[in-house]
C-alpha cells in the first residue's frame, strides 16, 4: 500500500470534483449546441429537432460576409505570425547565442503580458491615424493587428519542436557537403514542419476567436464572425445565433484537434 506512488486519483473527493468541473465547463456549450438544433425560434422552448437555423444562417449574407472576413484575416494573420515566429525560434535556438535573448522573449510574449484591452486600445489609436492618413479601410488593419497577438501562439510549438531536435543532424548534413541553405531545406525545415503547421493552426484559431482587438480595430461596417455575433446578440437572441456559434465552435475544435494530433507525433 505504502509502496504505491502518490496519485491525485487516490485523494478522496477528487473524482466528484473532476466531474463537477467537467460539467461546469461543458454543459453550457452542450446546451448551446442543443438549442442550435431547436426547430422553434424561441430560446428555452423545445419544438423538435431541426437543422433549419443552420440553413438560415448559411443563407444570410451578413453572416457569410463576416465568416469570409474571419477566414481571410485568420489565414493571413496565421501565415504572417507563423513566418515571424519560425524565424524568431530559429534565431534563438540556432546559430551563436544572441545577445539580449531575454529581451527577445519579452518582445515575443508581449501579447501575453499586455492586457488585451490595452493592446486593443493602443492598436486602435495607431491604426486610426493610419486610416485617416491613407484613406484605406480594408481588412489589412485586422490582419496586422491579429498577426501581433498570434505570434506567441505560433511560436510555442515551433520552439518546442526545435528544442527537441538533435543538433548533430545539422552537423551531419554539413559534414556531408551540404551548405547552410541546403541543410535548412533538406533537414531543418522538414523536421520542423509539424511544429510550424501546429503553430499555424493555433494562430489561426486564436485569430478566428478574437473579439476584443477586432471590435476596436475594425472599420465601420466591417464584421468578423465574433463581432457579428456580438452585434446580433444586442438586437435579438435567436436560434440562428446558436447555429452560428455552433459552427464557429466546430471550426475551432477541428483546428485545435488537428494541431494537437500533429504535435503529438514524434520527430
Amino acid at each position: 500500500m505504502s509502496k504505491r506512488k502518490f496519485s491525485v486519483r487516490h485523494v478522496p473527493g477528487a473524482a466528484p470534483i473532476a466531474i463537477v468541473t467537467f460539467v461546469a465547463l461543458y454543459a453550457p456549450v452542450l446546451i448551446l449546441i442543443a438549442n442550435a438544433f431547436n426547430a422553434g425560434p424561441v430560446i428555452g422552448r423545445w419544438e423538435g429537432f431541426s437543422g433549419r437555423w443552420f440553413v438560415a444562417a448559411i443563407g444570410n449574407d451578413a453572416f457569410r460576409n463576416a465568416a469570409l472576413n474571419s477566414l481571410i484575416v485568420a489565414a493571413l494573420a496565421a501565415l504572417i505570425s507563423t513566418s515571424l515566429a519560425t524565424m524568431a525560434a530559429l534565431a534563438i535556438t540556432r546559430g551563436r547565442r544572441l545577445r539580449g535573448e531575454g529581451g527577445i522573449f519579452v518582445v515575443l510574449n508581449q501579447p501575453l503580458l499586455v492586457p488585451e484591452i490595452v493592446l486593443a486600445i493602443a492598436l486602435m489609436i495607431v491604426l486610426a491615424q493610419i486610416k485617416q492618413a491613407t484613406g484605406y479601410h480594408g481588412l489589412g488593419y485586422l490582419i496586422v493587428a491579429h498577426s501581433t497577438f498570434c505570434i506567441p501562439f505560433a511560436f510555442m510549438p515551433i520552439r518546442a519542436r526545435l528544442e527537441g531536435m538533435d543538433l548533430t543532424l545539422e552537423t551531419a548534413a554539413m559534414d556531408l557537403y551540404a551548405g547552410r541553405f541546403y541543410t535548412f531545406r533538406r533537414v531543418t525545415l522538414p523536421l520542423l514542419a509539424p511544429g510550424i503547421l501546429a503553430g499555424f493552426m493555433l494562430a489561426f484559431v486564436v485569430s478566428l476567436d478574437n473579439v476584443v482587438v477586432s471590435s476596436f480595430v475594425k472599420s465601420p461596417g466591417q464584421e468578423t464572425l465574433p463581432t457579428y455575433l456580438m452585434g446580433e446578440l444586442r438586437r435579438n437572441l435567436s436560434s440562428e445565433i446558436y447555429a452560428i456559434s455552433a459552427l464557429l465552435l466546430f471550426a475551432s475544435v477541428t483546428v485545435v484537434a488537428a494541431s494537437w494530433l500533429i504535435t503529438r507525433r514524434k520527430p
Partner: protein
Amino acid sequence: MLEIKSLSKTFGAGVAAYHALRSVDVTVAEGEFFTLLGPSGCGKTTLLRLIAGFEQPTGGQLVLDGQDIAAIPPSRRPVNTVFQSYALFPHMTVAQNVAFGLEARGTAPGDVARRVDEMLQLVQMDHLRDRKSAALSGGQQQRVALARALAPRPRILLLDEPLSALDLKLRKEMQAELKRLQREMGLTFIFVTHDQDEALTMSDRIAVMEGGRLQQVATPRDLYDHPANRFVAGFIGETNFLPGRAAEGQLRLDGFAPVALAEAKAVNGAVTVMIRPEHIIVGREAPDCVQTSGQIDELVFFGTDTHVKLTLPGGASLTARAQNSLHSATDLNPGQTVPLSLPYDALRILPDEAAHAV
C-alpha cells in the same frame, strides 16, 4: 596523408580557458587504421571535430595531402564522420540517407543511384533500403551511418566511438566488419574509442591521449610491450608497478639484489618498474629471473586464466596470471606462500614521475 602539426584547441578565454588539446603532433598515413584512445574528456572528440572542420584550432596546422585545410569549411572537406549517435536523418529512408552526401555535392542522379546500391550492398542493408531510418535497430543504424559516410568517397573517415551504443556481441561483429571494410577499401580511418580491447584488436597504430596531450603513438604490440610512461602502461592492459633505482646499467628493485639490464643504461635514479601479470611465473624458480616469493591473498577464476593476487615479503602487492591449461597446477590456495620468478626481459623501466617532480 594527414599531418597534424602542433595542433591546439582552447575553449573560452582568460581564467575560464580550457585547454582541450595541447600541441598535438602526429602524422596519419594513407590507408591506416588509426585509433585515438583515452579516458573521457581527454580531447578525442575535439580532435575529430577539428579534423572535420566543426571547430577551428586555436593553434597549429592540419595538412591533408600537402594542403593546409584550416580555411576549408566542413561542407567542403573531403572527410566524413560516423557520429556516435549515428545522426541519421529520421525523416528519410535508408537509401535517402545514403544518397544525401552525393546529392548535396550535385552528383548526377544515375551515379547517385548506382553508388547508393553499391554502398547498401557493402553494409548488407539492401533489403531495408526503403525503411525509415528511425525504425531501425542500433546495429542497422550503425551500418547505414557507415554507408552514408562512405558513399561520397571521403579521403579520411572519422569514427567517434561508433560501436559504444551496441551490445557486446554486436560490437564484436561490427569490429570485425569495420576492420574488413577498411582493409578492403584501403581507406584511412581515424577511430575514437575508450575501449582498450577494441583499440588493440583493430588498429594499425594507436595514439593514447590524456589531458589533451598525446602520451604515445605506437602499434598495439609496442604500446603493450613498451609503454612510454606510467599512464600508458596503466591504461593499456593490466600492470604491476614496482619501485626501484637504476644506476650504471644496474637495476635494483627495492628489496632485491641488483641485476644488470640493458634498459637500465639510459636512466639514473629512482624508477618505476613495470611487469605484466602474465609474465610472472608462479610456483617455480626459473632461470634469468628475479627470484622472490609471495603469499596468495586471493584467486580469481577468469576462464582462460586465473588471477593470483599476492603480497611480496616487502609488503608490496602483485597480480599474476596463471594460464588454465589442461594440466596446469590447480594446487594454488589462498594463504599459501609460493615462489615467484620475474623474468629479466619482462621488466620495463618507466621514468619515475614522482622522482621527476622532486
